[in-house]
């Protein structure tokens, strides 16, 4: 069925959707690691720079990297409380997006901070990784929660 919104000029509805068979390629181990409650990063064998999200090839010097387990505790480097979002995430509003600093990792990892009120999040706040039990095979399989909450990882 075609929706007609206006006739002068003529405006009609068009629909389009697509399913992709998407490959995570050379960084698949990161996503596979999340279900084992591991945060897998890579370290350049030439310059030593560390990457999380991981890269097979160093983004600074082009050298080959090696996998290693990143620490799971860190702190909030910066954040925002979102009150508007892309359509796919409207149901989650409001939520906190944060860049997480982890010891020994040269990049910052974008994730959500949950387990506290959005207004309680601050720069420098200690957080730890919490893994989702029912994995989606996306970076949402890990979130960060305030480090002081003692409850074990569930999701």
């Amino acid at each position, binding site marked *: 069925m075609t929706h007609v919104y*206006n006739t002068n*000029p003529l*405006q009609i509805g*068009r629909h*389009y959707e697509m399913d992709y068979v998407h490959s*995570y390629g050379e*960084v698949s181990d990161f996503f596979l690691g999340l279900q084992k409650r591991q945060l897998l990063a890579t370290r350049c064998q030439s310059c030593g720079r560390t*990457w999380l*999200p991981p890269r097979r090839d160093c*983004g*600074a010097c082009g050298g080959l990297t090696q996998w290693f387990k990143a620490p799971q505790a860190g702190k909030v*480097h*910066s*954040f*925002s*409380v*979102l*009150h*508007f*979002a*892309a*359509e*796919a*995430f*409207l149901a*989650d509003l409001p*939520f906190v*997006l*944060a*860049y997480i600093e982890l010891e020994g990792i*040269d*990049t*910052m*990892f*974008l*994730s*959500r901070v949950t387990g506290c009120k959005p207004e309680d999040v601050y*720069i420098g706040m200690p957080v730890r990784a919490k893994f989702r039990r029912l994995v989606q095979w*996306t*970076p*949402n399989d890990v979130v960060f929660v305030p480090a002081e909450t003692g409850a074990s990882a569930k999701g």
Partner: protein
Amino acid sequence: MSGGITKFAKANLLTQEAMCKDALDYALKDLDGRLELRDIQTTICTYFSDHFNGQLLFDSLTQDYLAMCPRPSMRIEGGGATGGLGIRAGYMDVASGLSEVCLVYGFEKMGEVSTEKGNEFIALASDTDFDFPVGGYYSGYYATMAQRHMHEFGTTMEQMAKIAVKNYDNAFHNRWAQKHERWTIGGVLEAPIIATPLTRPMVCVMSDGAACLILCTEEWAKRLRPDGDYAVITGLGCGTDTMRLGDRPRGDVIPLPGDERGKYDYIAGRWPGLASFRGGREAARQAYQQANITKPLEQIDFAEVHDAYASSELQTYEDMGLALYGQGGRFVEEGHPYIGGKLPVNPSGGLLACGHPVGATGLMQGVFALWQLQGSMARHCGDPEAGIDGSKIQVENARRGLIHSHAGTGTYITVHILERP
């Protein structure tokens, strides 16, 4: 040489092809018939996303519609910097000798989908493996940058709000601006929050619109505007940065030409991080070097910068060397970027007030810059019947301007310096 724009709007119900034609007609009319369609030797088409309309190879439809077939053309796309990159490509066409007269035209029609869907499409221009799936989208990314800038340098929301108010105030004198709205600092701060610390009037709107610029050799320029009423591109810069904001290094500032040693020692090992745009700095460095600019604040008369967010205009003051890193907030407090200030920024009202139909935006900046240098803002931007006095945003005796086009979270940035001949 000449330029044209359509008034950007939330929804323009003409087709993209017809919008481009309207912009082109404006540019040709401004040359009083001295340039004919057949004189155009090459074209560059700039638009950002195939998603908004579900039409791939839109450039072919527009090339055809503008009666430009079978001449050489290519589409240039680079996110929000699409228009700026198009100017760069047009310059390459002319400077290489491949073309004497090049038409750069661009458009975007974003109003066929909801704002939420549109934000999702734009978010697909961030990393779709790691950043988009957790709920990332552009207002969110910029908000984290603004938050970090506030944390590191003490920048305030009031300072960002001042930038928004300034741009809306300027837009009152520009008939091409989409938003003729009066804002106060308090009003901006109390408006609904999009993503902390950014409120709605600190964020530009998705829009429909088209713009074009005609670039040519100096010989053609003298023929087309015998009174010398054209602009010369004297500096071009282009910088890039990592798609994922979190992957940016924390290192040392790239110095600009003329910077003394040690000038940025106070943030050594921290730059750009999340607070600054390395690509913008690099673009400015190249453009200043070519245009022999060592004191940008003294040597540039105005700038049209990519204020998709009030916060990013503040950050851009610093990347362009108009203020020291961390002093962008003070720059606005001291009144420098206002009309009548040391270096008016976004006298047109910028993206905040004019809108951001992505592929047209960078070209719009070029059109406004040309009109500033011609001293023709009153004629082009005024509308006496509507009580709009364009002379109020004419920068007095403007001899040299900067335009700054910006993609992603600074993944592509172009800077062009335009001067009177």
